[in-house]
């Protein structure tokens, strides 16, 4: 059967057979790096289009439908237009930090992509501290945001950056505790181990109610961490113009946008990996026929399906809930979600120590 695993394996064998090991490794990392960058660009284009289409259909309009078939090339046109625009730097801005901030945000988003398992055997780097790496590196993006807000010499930017900083660090805690509650079940931080442990069912269903609670908490926390509505205080359009990237124009603005959408993709991919089994097909206990039928769907389709479903849910939030105030936002985290996730973690560990999970 033609799968991504076979293709990568044959390329690997060919490279190591043709070149000496160092050159092969170098070439391989170059190929993988270029693939990741291409994937990154495609993701940005697809997700921006998806956001606009989903918003449009939720408001009973058509959305972009002129450029390309069904508006599919709209984002490409927008990117080209942005590339032709002037990159302004406001007077009195800290020029070095102002130009460093987009780099920071993008590089962080690119680095979190590394341990994500896209399909069976398709993972750039199966690091043994996978989920810890993701939660550690993803919290670096707040530095880029604070940098952008501070360097812009603009009041909107500074307010947006401060809000965003407080919000991201607060919700980091709940997201981390939800991750830990799955780690207690799997006993490993490695992404491939976490996926393998869901062979006979996804943790969302196997882990009883605590797993569902931590799934919900995780989705709320990542919505806040990626500055999405209803937690989009960092760039609340109606009050702060565009928040921390008010002063950015042209390609630098596009880079912020790209990083934001790739971050959404990655957090949804992590949620799918931890709770919905990553690329693992839907298996139910001993229903052998059903399980075999499910195995015929390729693993990459499973992964992409789950991830895009979660992305759709997060986009759905945007048109369902009104925006919170900053004090409501922070008290939601510190007074409700944090104690709840601590209790939930204890409950979850009790379940796994007693072996009550399936």
């Amino acid at each position, binding site marked *: 059967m033609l799968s991504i695993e076979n293709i990568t394996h044959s390329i690997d064998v060919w490279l190591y057979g043709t070149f000496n090991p160092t050159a092969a*490794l170098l070439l*391989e*990392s170059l190929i*993988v*790096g*270029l693939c990741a*960058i291409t994937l990154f660009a495609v993701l940005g284009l697809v997700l921006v289009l998806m956001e606009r289409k989903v918003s449009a259909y939720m408001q009973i309009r058509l959305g972009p439908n002129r450029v390309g078939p069904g508006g599919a090339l709209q984002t490409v046109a927008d990117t080209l237009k*942005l*590339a*032709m*625009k*002037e*990159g*302004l*730097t*406001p*007077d*009195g*801005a800290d020029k070095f930090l102002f*130009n460093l901030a*987009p*780099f920071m945000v993008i*590089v962080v988003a*690119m*680095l979190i992509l*590394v341990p994500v398992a896209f399909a069976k055997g398709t993972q750039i780097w199966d*690091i043994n501290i996978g989920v810890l790496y993701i939660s550690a590196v993803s919290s670096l993006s707040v530095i880029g945001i604070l940098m952008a807000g501070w360097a812009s010499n*603009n*009041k*909107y930017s*500074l*307010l947006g950056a*401060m809000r965003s900083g*407080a919000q991201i*660090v*607060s919700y980091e*805690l709940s997201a*981390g*505790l939800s991750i*830990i509650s799955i*780690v*207690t079940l799997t006993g490993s931080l490695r992404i491939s181990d976490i996926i393998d442990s869901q062979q006979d069912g996804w943790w969302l269903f196997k882990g009883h109610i605590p797993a569902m609670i931590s799934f919900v908490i995780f989705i709320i926390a990542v919505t806040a961490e990626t500055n999405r509505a209803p937690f989009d205080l960092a760039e609340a359009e109606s009050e702060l*113009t565009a928040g921390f990237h*008010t002063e950015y124009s*042209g*390609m630098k603005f596009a*880079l912020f946008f790209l990083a934001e959408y790739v971050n959404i993709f990655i957090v949804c991919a992590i949620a799918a990996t931890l709770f919905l089994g990553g690329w693992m097909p839907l298996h139910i206990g001993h229903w052998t026929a059903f399980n075999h039928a499910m195995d015929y769907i390729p693993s990459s389709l499973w992964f992409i399906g789950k991830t895009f479903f979660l992305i759709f849910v997060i986009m759905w939030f945007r048109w369902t809930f009104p925006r919170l105030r*900053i*004090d409501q936002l*922070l*008290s939601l985290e*510190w007074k409700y979600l*944090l*104690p709840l996730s*601590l209790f939930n*973690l*204890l409950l979850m*560990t009790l379940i*796994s*120590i007693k072996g009550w999970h399936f």
Partner: protein
Amino acid sequence: MPSNESHSTLLWPLLLYTILVVILLAAILALSYLLGQRHDDRATGKPYEGGIEQTGAARLRFSAKFYLVAMLFVIFDVEAVFIMLWALGFYALGWRGYLGVLVFIGQLLVVLVYEWGIGALSIGADAKKILKEYKKIKLNSDEMVAKQPW
């Protein structure tokens, strides 16, 4: 890539990847700089402030609560690292480990309740308190009005 290699050999592809990303970004920005327009008008470099002249510097003073949130985050995030370590050795530690973490998380919750009690978590104005004060003042003034002889 064989997975049993040591970390030192596995780290440099990551570094190479980062460098690749940085070079690509620099190329994109340089291209956009070459293709982009150039203006130097009276208001080109002015920071945006709703279309009017900027009033005062943009380096505002902001609420100290943001600092407080960051401090609280440091406390709880360091604890999260400890809990993560425990979660890895969880099956080996068994009930004794569970009791230990119970005490640890209990302490965390006590800290959280204490912070809540001293008002570290009440960010922004408390609308209910303001409303209560307002009602008290209004009641007093209404009474004063009622006491007037006319």
